[in-house]
């Protein structure tokens, strides 16, 4: 990944015994995640009151932000921002893969596309969880990370398309049958509910709250992680880079204190909002 090597240029110098840090995410990738989780929280916060519009909290929240005119406005606003971010990402992927002919985008160890190793890793990981085997050696993107990526990708298309179909219903009715207009709300709300429940419970725990990363995996915010973390979490990638002699290219500065603190605060707020929405969703879902 050519991008990943750039920040490393400025950090060749080592501070003796100090722990080494390695780049995992580029600035663009971190920004994409920031836009993604900000708009996702916004969409969830404005979408859930619509989904559970009979709940007292939904009505209180709606009147707090200025009624439904405001709710629907912000929902559409976040949707447009996220759509733009998604399109920029897709364009970037195609640019790198098809135009620049960058290797490793669509297949290979650094690709987001699933492969046979992911299936073996999943089964091996499950065996390890119940104490029947060794822990699999994960590559750059573990199978659950790929699932997260494709779940968002699929969700973006499904929720996005169904959302725009409702927003511009008379236009979409020119080429969609009438019953599809009924279907898009069911699809939109169920898929969004899945995304919300998944992100605010599974993704939060898998990525941030599990003992290895608790309370938060900072790498998506700072872009770098310590050598120890790198070795434990992605031994296969570490070994591959070491074998290829490319490990040095990925060395980076330890994250600045302000960045770590800022990321902690932002991450904690995001997780807190997410967990609050999760509790409200579950209470409305099982309360009604």
């Amino acid at each position, binding site marked *: 990944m050519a991008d990943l090597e750039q920040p490393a240029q400025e950090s060749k110098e080592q501070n003796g015994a100090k722990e080494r840090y390695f780049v995992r995410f580029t600035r663009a990738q971190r920004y994409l995640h920031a836009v993604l989780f900000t708009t996702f929280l916004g969409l969830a916060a404005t979408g859930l009151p619509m*989904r559970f519009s009979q709940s007292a909290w939904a009505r209180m929240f709606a009147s707090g932000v200025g009624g439904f005119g405001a709710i629907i406005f912000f929902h559409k606003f976040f949707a447009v921002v996220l759509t733009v971010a998604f399109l920029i990402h897709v364009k970037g992927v195609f640019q790198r893969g098809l135009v620049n002919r960058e290797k490793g985008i669509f297949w290979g160890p650094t690709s987001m596309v699933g492969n046979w190793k992911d299936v073996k890793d999943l089964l091996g*990981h499950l065996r390890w969880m119940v104490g029947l085997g060794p822990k699999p050696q994960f590559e750059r993107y573990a199978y659950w990370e790929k699932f997260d990526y494709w779940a968002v990708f699929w969700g973006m298309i499904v929720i996005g398309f169904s959302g725009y179909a*409702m927003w511009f219903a008379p236009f979409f009715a020119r080429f969609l049958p009438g*019953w599809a*207009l009924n279907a898009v*709300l069911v*699809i939109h709300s169920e898929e969004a509910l*899945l995304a919300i429940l998944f992100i605010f419970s599974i993704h939060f725990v898998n990525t941030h709250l599990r003992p290895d990363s608790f309370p938060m995996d900072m790498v998506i915010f700072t872009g770098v992680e310590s050598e120890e973390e790198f070795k434990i979490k992605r031994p296969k990638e570490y070994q591959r880079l070491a074998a290829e002699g490319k490990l040095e290219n990925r060395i980076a500065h330890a994250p600045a204190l302000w960045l770590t603190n800022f990321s902690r605060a932002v991450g904690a707020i995001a997780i807190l909002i997410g967990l609050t929405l999760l509790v409200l969703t579950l209470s409305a879902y099982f309360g009604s």
Partner: protein
Amino acid sequence: MKSRSSIALTWAASALLLLAAPRAVVAQTDCLACHADASMQDASGHSVAVDAPKFHSSIHGGLQCSDCHTAIKDYPHPDKITPVQCDTCHADEAAGLVGSVHASRAEHPCTSCHGDAHAIFPKADPRSAVYPLNVPRTCGACHGNASMAKQHGLNNVYPLYLDSIHGFALSKEGLLVAANCQSCHGSHHILSHKDPQSPTYKANVPKTCGNCHAGIAAEYMGGVHGKAIAAGELDAPVCSDCHTAHAIEQPTASAFRMQSTPICGSCHKDKFSTYRDTFHSQLGSLGGYVETARCWDCHKAHEILPASDPRSPINKANLIATCGRCHAGANRSFVQYQPHANARNRKLNPALYFIRLFMNLLLGSVLTFFMIHTVLWLIRSHYIQIKTRSANGGKNG
């Protein structure tokens, strides 16, 4: 000259005689000699003073005291005298009171509504307690009293009326035509709304409201609800079921639009639950945004007609126009949208049913798998952490 003056004298004398003959023995001036004193009280401490100028300007100002106080023939008169019987003259009104909710003369003397017996004015006079703009305050003296309402099992209606569209028209605009209590309940022959003769009896409500709202009443009577009421089906809603009887709001107000859909839903339960599943309801339920379609935006409010009626806004031929009122560009395909689709009903909406089933299975299976995956992972990670710590002689060693 002499004969002329004698003729005039004779005329004057006979005129006096004519005037004096039917009059009571005691003249106003005689009574007022004592009763004009504002501090005058009877033995039990009640005021027996009469405001003479006010009495003279009142509708009864031309009568002699003894016309009403018939027991008093001479002076001095007894301390205790029989109560005044208004029905001696006002027989029609008295007949009206018989059988009414205010029939008890002891609890509801005429003065309880008409005010001070010596200051009664015609109802067209702004000084009258029953002048249209004063009626609510007069009735409210009792019907704005929460404990009195509770005691009689009534609603405390006066505050509700004051804040209603009728109350505002009356108190803020001073409209004489604004409905006051008496416009709907009548005046003397007021009957309980349970009495079929009462103008507020359910079946009579459309006619009562129609006294002013004639156009709406005609539309209503042409619709399914009006026809049902006319046929004696009293489960059908009348004006007051949707608009309430006293706290009537401007129907375009957000609060009214918010509260009214559940009113339709209280009878049309299946339609209400399917409406609740739609974007129209989801958006509209939270208030502040009143434009989303409610029942009457598609079905009309008063002249509600079945979809089979070509004049109905939900008749197939009219759907593009009806939906198009909000959705500019609505076409034939657009109006195939079902505003009451039931995704839980396989027979009625198979496509929607299977889409919902698929989405639920997807949601359920993904979450179930990852739930198990995450929990196992957490347990294993925790176990390994403890093992590592104990191996290193840590706090769990």
